[in-house]
């Protein structure tokens, strides 16, 4: 099975600065790591590779520095590493990001399965996976907590988390599937695996290789624009500070009052 996993490098959101000119967040010199849900996607890919054989290709788009997430992906079992980086791809919204990723996957595929995290902890949009499926022309299912081999050959069984239920589906490939964060299946890599991972070369794609029209990538290829970024204004409540004892008393009284009105209504 040929599996591609899209991974995103995310910054520690506590370390944010604004770029005065164009409202873009500077990413130099901050601590970076693999987005948590993308880790789940990688660990799921590793399990599927064990069951079905094949290869895992990890793809990330970002600054040259995002190569570090590919090294992490290699430690988790990725066999092929793609770094998609070009100043022309910068400041892309979810549409333009999905477009470039879809072109890379078309050029290097075909893939039986494309796995993504259900959302990134920085933007939290969860839009790239579904957009990618449309651009690749394959089915899409989001918010999965498990992917298993199906009784029917050629199918996969997926468990999906919704607000009210856990649903199981049988899907055919190819497909784009997105995974929830928090489920990690991998064990610590062996020394041999670490050695193998260190030898995997990172293959870079810039627009010299991809030849995408400049109006379709980066900020120009984005339908949305961030017009203004501002520090949120202060709240509209006046805070009255109480001592611990007074506060506890006030809380207990408020809880009591709310419950009385609950009973009377």
């Amino acid at each position, binding site marked *: 099975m040929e599996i591609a996993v899209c991974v995103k490098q995310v910054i520690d959101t506590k370390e944010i600065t604004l770029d005065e000119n164009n409202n873009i967040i500077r990413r130099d010199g901050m601590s970076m790591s693999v987005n948590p849900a993308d880790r789940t996607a990688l660990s799921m890919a590793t399990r599927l590779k064990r069951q079905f054989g094949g290869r895992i290709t990890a793809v990330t788009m970002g600054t040259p520095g995002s190569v570090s997430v590919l090294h992490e992906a290699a430690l988790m079992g990725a066999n092929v590493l793609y770094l998609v980086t070009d100043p022309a791809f910068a400041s892309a919204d979810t549409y333009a990001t999905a477009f470039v990723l879809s072109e890379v996957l078309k050029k290097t595929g075909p893939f039986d399965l494309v796995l993504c995290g259900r959302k990134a902890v920085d933007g939290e949009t969860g839009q790239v996976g579904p957009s990618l499926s449309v651009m690749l022309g394959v089915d899409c299912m989001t918010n999965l907590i498990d992917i298993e081999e199906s009784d029917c050959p050629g199918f996969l069984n997926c468990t999906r988390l*919704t607000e009210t239920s856990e649903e199981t589906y*049988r899907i055919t490939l190819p497909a784009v599937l997105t995974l929830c964060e928090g489920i990690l299946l991998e064990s610590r890599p062996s020394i041999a695996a670490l050695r193998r991972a260190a030898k995997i070369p990172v293959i870079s794609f810039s627009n010299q290789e991809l030849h995408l029209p400049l109006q379709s990538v980066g900020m120009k290829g984005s339908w949305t624009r961030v017009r203004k970024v501002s520090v949120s204004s202060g709240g509209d409540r006046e805070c009255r500070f109480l001592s611990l004892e007074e506060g506890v008393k006030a809380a207990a009284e408020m*809880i009591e009052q709310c419950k009385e009105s609950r009973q009377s209504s």
Partner: protein
Amino acid sequence: MSREKEIWVLCEIRGNELLEVGLELIGKAASMSHGREWSVCAVLLGHDSALYAEKVFAAGADVVIPMCCEKEAMPPEYIAAERLYQILKDNRPFALLIGAGVYGRTLAPLLAALLKTGLTADCTELSIENDLLVQTRPAFGGTLMAEVICPEGRPQMASVRPGAFPLPTLKRERHGTVRQEPCSSEISRSGIQILGKKAFSSKESLLKADIILAGGAGLGKEGFKKLREIGDKANCSIGASRSAVNLGLAPYSAQIGQTGVIVRPKFYIAIGISGSVQHLVGIRNAGAVMAVNPDPRAPIFRYADIGVVSGWKEFLPKLEDALSSLY
């Protein structure tokens, strides 16, 4: 018929119930189109959708489009997206608003990619400025607010969490027109087949809770255990900050904020929550807010009516005692 002056709202029907977020969005769309002579068009998605037309008219819709839906179950998102695409591709409205549940958050980007237009996730405020829908959302971990626009793509698409806007008052005397759109049923290639469904126990949703005790990451396992004990005894709901949920201290369903649940309790107590913007937008509709935090400079105090500078270890046992003396 031109749709440039129409705001469309997608309304999901689940288990014979119209999801309230649809009505909230119709209310918001109606207030934005007020004074402009624009119309609000509700697309009803689900089984027997035509039955819900009166309700959405009462909420502020002028036009209803019932989407065909053969079975009780909702169509998979990509099928719904393709059907909507067929209706929208050649004649595009000004904007399309979608409730941001799991279903809507999948359907919206599929549809935006098909239509080749912009989509902003989890907006907390919307307004119209000339020919633009100004979409405001907390960004970058909720430390900042971003205003997003989509200058060229139409419709301008936005997803919005349930509870972000108030439920409109229903005016039963309001009526509108039902518009039938051709529904292409040949798009039912389905590589996806449902095998089973396990419904969660229907605990009262945080959205309807009147008292919420919410904890932050600093509470740890021990603090959340204490919080749950108090919640069980005093019959209060338990909420959590995003970082607490990320640490596995509480389930995702307990997450309060822009990307969790937007709540409107009568009384909200935030314990050990510093107050990032993405959390604060989740509680701005709360009645009284009390903040308990050891750091007197924590932003949460600027959004609270009552503040107590204290750690959870001091506060929670005392609260437990105070409450048990009442019962």
